[in-house]
């Protein structure tokens, strides 16, 4: 039934076509030609698109296929976020003369001198450090000894400011000088140079509660400028509870390589601190102790230089390090005095230096020499000139050390020294010291 209907329709259509005139035919042909043309154009366009798509796919494939995914170091549990922890164990055996109230003749004592002999454990340092977030990094160093835990450092520093700018806020070892930033376990000798003890007291380092801002110049020569402001409580300043700042510092560091085997850094620093009621013992004309209390300004200038050599720059086997620093300190103010003395003006101008060289001659052995000298300089007590003794003295000390390292993390050191830092006393010292670093592998400064 359906078939026959279709046949009929076809027949009718063909009949209609036969009946059409030539003019109609021409029109139809023209229409068909038009259609053909447009279809051909479309097909050509489609073909072109296809070719394009194919080539694109090809190029994408070849470019992107081999990029491997990044796999960062992964630690499974939540404690992966714990800070880097390291602990420094340090102790010594010391043979020296017993000198209670050990100090440096001609210099105001900035705390108690180290007079411990025999076996003793030095400060045990606990270091915690981690990135806070993408913008900040924090670090705390707690020094523990005999029932005390001191916050040696507790600061955060910027990671994301850029343009060579670095910001550090909190309690930090000031970047003035060279040795000042280094903790005792990084020292090349068992003790700090006399110069640092005279400048900054018993901890032999200037620690500031405040803000440090530094800028590294965009040059191939290393040039760094820094400024610090803060509480200024560290000797030669004193802690004063007031608004504003108690101390400030400026410094510049310059450094570079010379060839592949040599590198150096030089620096100049300026430190200003204020003191009020900084008490110290003086000796009056009669030989008795007089209690003096200083109030005024203290200005310290420092110059430092470090030069390191290693054959081919490979310090793992052999290397040599020379380091030297010089300081001048000027103090101006008034002295309040209790004893056989009066209140007077107080002006001093004192200086000192040290130079040391340390040679690592095998991967495990190093030997070093240090010589240092201070100059008690000018001490003007004004109206007290007739009442107080002015010791004019040049304290000297010479030290020699040799140390052995089983690995990067353990070291044993033997040091002998002839200490003439006190007038009329020659103290021959022998120290055997160990330094052990546990935990995270902290990077050390140059």
């Amino acid at each position, binding site marked *: 039934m359906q078939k026959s209907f279709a046949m009929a329709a076809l027949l009718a259509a063909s009949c209609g076509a036969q009946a059409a005139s030539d003019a109609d035919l021409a029109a139809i042909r023209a229409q068909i030609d038009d259609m053909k043309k447009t279809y051909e154009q479309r097909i050509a366009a489609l073909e072109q698109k296809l070719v394009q798509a194919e080539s694109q796919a090809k190029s994408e494939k*070849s*470019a992107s296929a*081999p*990029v*491997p*995914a*990044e*796999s*960062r*170091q992964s630690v499974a549990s939540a404690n992966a976020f714990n800070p880097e922890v390291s602990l420094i164990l340090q102790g010594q055996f010391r043979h020296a003369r017993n000198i209670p109230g050990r100090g440096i003749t001609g210099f105001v004592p900035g705390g108690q001198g180290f007079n411990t002999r025999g076996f003793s454990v030095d400060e045990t340092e606990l270091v915690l450090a981690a990135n806070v977030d*993408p913008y900040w*990094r924090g670090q705390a160093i707690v020094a523990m000894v005999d029932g005390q835990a001191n916050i040696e450092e507790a600061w955060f*520093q910027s*990671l*994301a*400011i*850029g*343009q*060579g*700018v*670095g910001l550090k806020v909190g309690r930090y070892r000031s970047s003035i000088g060279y040795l000042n930033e280094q903790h005792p376990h990084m020292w090349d000798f068992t003790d700090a140079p006399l110069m640092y003890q005279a400048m900054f007291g018993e901890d032999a380092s200037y620690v500031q509660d405040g803000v440090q801002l*530094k*800028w*590294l*110049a*965009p*040059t*191939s*020569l*290393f*040039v*760094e400028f820094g400024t610090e402001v803060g509480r200024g409580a560290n000797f030669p300043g004193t802690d004063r509870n007031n608004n504003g700042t108690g101390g400030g510092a400026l410094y510049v*560091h*310059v*450094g*570079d*390589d010379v060839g*592949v085997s040599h*590198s*150096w*850094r030089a620096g100049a620093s300026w430190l200003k601190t204020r003191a009020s009621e900084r008490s110290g013992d003086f000796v009056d004309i009669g030989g008795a102790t007089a209690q003096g209390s200083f109030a005024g300004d203290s200005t310290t200038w420092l110059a430092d230089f470090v030069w*390191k050599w290693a054959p*081919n*720059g*490979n*310090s*793992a*086997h052999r290397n040599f390090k020379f380091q030297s620093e010089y300081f001048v300190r000027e103090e101006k103010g008034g002295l309040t005095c209790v004893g056989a003395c009066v209140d007077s003006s107080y002006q001093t101008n004192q200086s000192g230096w040290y130079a040391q060289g340390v040679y690592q001659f095998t*991967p*495990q052995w190093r030997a070093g020499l240090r010589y240092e000298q201070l100059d008690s300089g000018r001490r003007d007590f004004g109206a007290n000139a007739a009442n107080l003794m002015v010791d004019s003295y040049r304290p000297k000390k010479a030290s020699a050390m040799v140390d052995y390292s*089983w*690995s*990067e*993390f353990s070291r044993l050191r033997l040091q002998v020294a002839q200490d003439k830092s006190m007038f009329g006393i020659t103290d021959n010292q022998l120290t055997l010291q160990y330094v052990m670093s*546990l935990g995270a*592998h902290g*990077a*050390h*400064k*140059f």
Partner: protein
Amino acid sequence: MKHFIFACFFGLTVGTAQADLKVFATVPEWGALAQEIGGGKVKVYTATTAFQDPHRIEARPSLLAQARQANLVVAAGADLEIGWLPLVLRDSGNSAIQPGQPGYFAAANFVNRLEVPTTLDRAHGDVHAAGNPHTHLDPRNVLKVGAALTARMVELDAVNGAAYQAGYQAFAGKWQTAMARWQKEAAPLKGVPVLVHHASFVYLTNWLGIKEVGALEPKPGIEPTSGHLTDLLARQQSAPAKMVLRAAYQQDGPSLWIAGKTGLPAVLLPYTVGGTPEAKDLFGLFDDTVQRLLKGLR
């Protein structure tokens, strides 16, 4: 003619101005790779040479000054540079190259690391928590790192992206051909037992099927001791090695001592680009490494 000179001069000034991406590479091998990819579009500073122990570099002032100006730090990673690089990065005042930023690239993150320790204890020496960091001595790793480094360079300097892609494609093509050649040449090395100074050749021995039977360092990072070397000599009876390998930056004393006692050849390998006069670039590094190993076998 005038126009030609002008065009040359203009091209020159533009050319130098375009050397935009400043790359700070911690080690020669990745510095060389960045140069292969970047060609004239990058300026590569390499912080260390083949004669320096990459574990024991100091945070020198010159390194800080270079890091300050870098757009991209290419490090070996896996804690190889832990004793100095973190300090250089933090004190550089350069926010773009801090870990976590696109400007910090650690090669070891893009390969399968070997010798990842299951227990972390310094009683085992200076072990790296993330595994052995000397990844470049397997040429397949060089290719992987190259692909990832290219992607990173394109991300940082899109203007020259096509040039980096092209640079990598050209390098990868040549590298694959060379790799086939090295593998063919090094076929006799398969299964050969060797002693090494430090665990710096794990990826090389793994690639070529060389058998590492002992290290002169008693523990990684601990200097060879006479006691340990004597033990190695004793072991030579039961499990004999055929060569003693050391890198250009390692002391020759211990391997020469072993060589003198046993008659084994002490083979110095360039370890990285610049380690021997022949290892001028990455191709030279592997050409020379394979040749020196084969010579040691003879």
